[in-house]
């Protein structure tokens, strides 16, 4: 009987408190206080354990790069025909009178390792390697676009610590 009574009491309770609880003050904290914690797959894959393990796996992770990236880091649309200037491919951005832009293929394995990107940034490889420069432009676009992509967590973990634009 006691149970029944308390059930009834429960049912009699008005819904007001729930609504009030929802309408609480929202306090936006100071910017320096982190509001998000991120778990990256590279952390999950670390085999060495601890921070050292995470570092190793960050440098071994892969950032895939598609074929047909132009010198500004844009992916060349599939319908654009490529022309050749010696061995170097190029295309016209807006028809024959448009801007001539050089096109680069993916790196030899279709991806860069974290280590390659880190070394490339540190050695300023993009200054003398036009293909790498185009790929760096592409990576920056991918990183800033917010749309994500395979390998972006790998890229973020390297570029956040060693390279800023």
């Amino acid at each position: 009987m006691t149970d029944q009574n308390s059930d009834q009491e429960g049912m009699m309770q008005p819904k007001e408190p729930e609504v009030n609880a929802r309408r609480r003050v929202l306090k936006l904290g100071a910017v320096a206080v982190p509001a998000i914690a991120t778990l990256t797959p590279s952390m999950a894959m670390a085999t060495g354990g601890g921070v050292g393990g995470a570092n190793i796996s960050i440098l071994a992770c892969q950032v895939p790069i598609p074929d047909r990236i132009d010198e500004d880091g844009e992916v060349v649309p599939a319908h654009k025909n490529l022309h050749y200037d010696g061995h170097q491919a190029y295309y016209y951005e807006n028809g024959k009178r448009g801007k001539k832009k050089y096109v680069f293929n993916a790196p030899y394995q279709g991806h860069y390792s974290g280590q390659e990107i880190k070394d490339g940034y540190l050695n300023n490889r993009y200054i003398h390697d036009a293909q790498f420069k185009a790929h760096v432009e592409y990576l920056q676009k991918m990183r800033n676009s917010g749309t994500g992509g395979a390998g972006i967590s790998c890229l973020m973990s390297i570029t956040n610590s060693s390279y800023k634009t």
Partner: protein
Amino acid sequence: MALYVPVEAVRYEKLDDLSLVFHRLSGETHILSPEMEAIYEAIPAGGADAEQILFRLEAVHGLVEAEEGDPASALCLRLDQLTELGIVRHIS
């Protein structure tokens, strides 16, 4: 007008006191603080600018305060953090 739009390729899970956002493309899982959760939930699927998002937050919470500066600029900084993680897109 700059719009903030939630990215579709995420899985959003609310636990008791914790909200998790799994970003399918990067494989990253983000743990949102309660304030970030409120902001993230206030962004409509069709997108909204910071002013509209603040209005929506006020509709749910009644009062939005900031520890530093005014709520509007504090909100913008939080929205930028969400954008940086790739779970919100910024269209200008």
